[in-house]
């Protein structure tokens, strides 16, 4: 029998529908794969195999009675940021290490309503703050990919490192993820997978542990562009429980996959040609441009003049919102409470200091500082004004193009325990240099694997669409996917 875990989501759904495979068989195949791989990769922080078996049996019944839903019987992994009813959800923070939500996030509820099967909860950076999955309370995730020059363990990226690693290593058909500054697209690029962050407001934030509410957006990490369209269809919805949820129609995302891009105008921003970026990244970008030209698209030079200010702007806005959102962890109503104090302030301070990790504390303090009296206007309000400039850059650029093509990341996956990046927070933050702009502007962004570098590691290209135009974004990505013919998989060492 062929290895069922190698199937794409689309392939598995077709096989289930045609009754060539059962959800139970498929689920057991993934359980076996996780049991073998997880001690090495640490992608899952919690497995829910009994629940998965129950859901698979229910799906098999539904399929047998001709009552199958859109994702019927498909085993998925869920980023630990999404609250799952009665299943531990920690956002990979020590402060939530025993939190059992009494409710379900809207995104995951949508998946279960469509018949998906939950294999477990996926590792991530603590509260999604990180670019290497090393800030997780449960330890880092290892990338299934290895450099051909060294045996060193590599990061799968972050914050959705567990999601990316699990999809790349065939430990689920697809995974949920979330993206505040690049947390879907950077891990996707580092693992040879596809990741899309939809337009802000497409997917509900209800039940998704908050990091920076004006930037956070859920999306999938998948094996193919078509799978991304299928996941997105189910994950997105209008939700009255999220006041920034958009009441807009959902197009049939799959119908854009494979659609002609002839005549579409592809914007190439001059400002994304950065000094010090490896030549391979630029070469891949040029290759992407050539592929789209071959497909009949028109290439247009555009300018996004405020690009270089996006990261510093983000590192005011995101920590400011985080410091406010994370004020709720006070040790009183849920989460960790210290045993070492009796007074109120002592209890607050020690509970938080014991529960939060180093990077989270650093960001809370930056946020508190930029919001504090005397600095609010100089930092926070200033950043909000720069944010509008960055958003306006895109509005202006989209007058002359339909989508924008850029590299996804400034490098391929780097080693876990990279001491230079650990010592310099700003060096780590630069991972998001190409991705963070779309969070600030609220636009859809997708990373598609497009080639390997000289170390044999995957590299991604990023497609940025107009607001609510995930469709064209997917169409462009599917042309790139086809042209790249990216069929590489990491060799199994675990």
């Amino acid at each position, binding site marked *: 029998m062929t290895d069922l875990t190698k199937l794409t989501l689309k392939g598995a759904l077709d096989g289930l529908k045609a009754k060539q495979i059962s959800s139970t068989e498929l689920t057991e195949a993934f359980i076996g794969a996780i049991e073998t791989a997880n001690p090495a990769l640490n992608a899952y922080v919690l497995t829910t195999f009994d629940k998965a078996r129950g859901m698979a049996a229910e799906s098999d019944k539904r399929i047998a009675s001709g009552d199958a839903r859109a994702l019927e019987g498909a085993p998925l992994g869920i980023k630990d940021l999404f609250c799952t009813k009665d299943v531990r959800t920690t956002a990979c923070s020590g402060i939530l290490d025993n939190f059992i939500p009494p*409710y379900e996030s809207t995104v995951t509820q949508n998946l279960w309503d469509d018949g998906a099967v939950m294999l477990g909860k996926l590792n991530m950076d603590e509260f999604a703050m990180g670019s290497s999955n090393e800030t997780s309370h449960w330890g880092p995730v290892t990338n299934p990919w290895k450099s051909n020059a060294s045996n060193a363990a590599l990061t799968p990226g972050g914050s959705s490192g567990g999601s990316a690693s699990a999809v790349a290593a065939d430990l689920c058909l697809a995974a949920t993820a979330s993206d505040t500054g690049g947390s879907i697209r950077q891990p996707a690029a580092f693992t040879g997978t596809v990741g899309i962050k939809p337009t802000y407001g497409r997917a509900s934030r209800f039940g998704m542990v908050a990091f920076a509410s004006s930037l956070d957006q859920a999306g999938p990490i998948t094996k193919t562009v078509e799978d991304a369209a299928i996941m997105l269809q189910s994950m997105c919805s209008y939700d009255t429980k999220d*006041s920034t949820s*958009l009441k807009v129609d959902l197009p049939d995302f799959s119908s854009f996959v494979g659609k002609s891009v002839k005549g579409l105008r592809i914007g190439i921003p001059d400002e994304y040609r950065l000094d010090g970026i490896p030549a391979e990244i630029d070469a891949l970008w040029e290759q992407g441009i050539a592929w789209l030209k071959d497909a009949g698209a028109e290439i247009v030079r555009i300018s996004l003049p405020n690009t270089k200010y996006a990261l510093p702007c983000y590192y005011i806005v995101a920590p400011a919102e985080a410091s406010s959102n994370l004020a709720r962890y006070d040790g*009183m*109503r849920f989460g960790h409470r210290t045993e070492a104090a009796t*007074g109120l*302030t002592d209890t607050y301070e020690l509970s938080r200091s014991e529960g939060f990790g180093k990077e989270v504390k650093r960001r809370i303090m930056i946020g508190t500082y930029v919001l504090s009296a005397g600095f609010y206007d100089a930092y926070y309000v200033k950043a909000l004004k*720069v944010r509008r400039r960055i958003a306006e850059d895109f509005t202006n650029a989209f007058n002359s193009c339909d989508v924008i093509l850029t590299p996804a990341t400034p490098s391929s996956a780097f080693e876990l325990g990279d001491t230079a990046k650990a010592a310099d927070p700003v060096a780590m933050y630069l991972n998001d240099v190409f991705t963070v702009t779309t969070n600030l502007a609220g636009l859809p962004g997708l990373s598609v694997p497009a080639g390997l570098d000289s170390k044999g590691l995957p590299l991604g290209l990023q497609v940025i669409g107009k607001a609510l135009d995930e469709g064209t974004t997917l169409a462009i990505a599917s042309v790139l996917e086809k042209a790249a013919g990216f069929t590489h998989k990491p060799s199994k060492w675990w």
Partner: protein
Amino acid sequence: MAIDVATVRKVASLSRLRESDERLESLAGELNGILGWIEQLNEVDVSGVQPMTSCIEMTQPLRDDVVSDGDKVADVVKNAPKTVDGFFIVPKVVE
């Protein structure tokens, strides 16, 4: 504007975080590095620009003023570190 250890201590206190003196020292360096890098925003001309608080233009939706959920005391206190009879037990607030 460089941050000294006293300022970091004040920010930690405002953040309800307690850090060792040694860690406060190193945080002063880290925060100075990050804020120094952020200073480049001063190069951007933002005269006349309105602050952007949301990336979607929409009016705040209002729901009907009706009770739609509730009676979930057990759920609400389920994850609390200390409870009794559906109440949270907290440290003494008023001396």
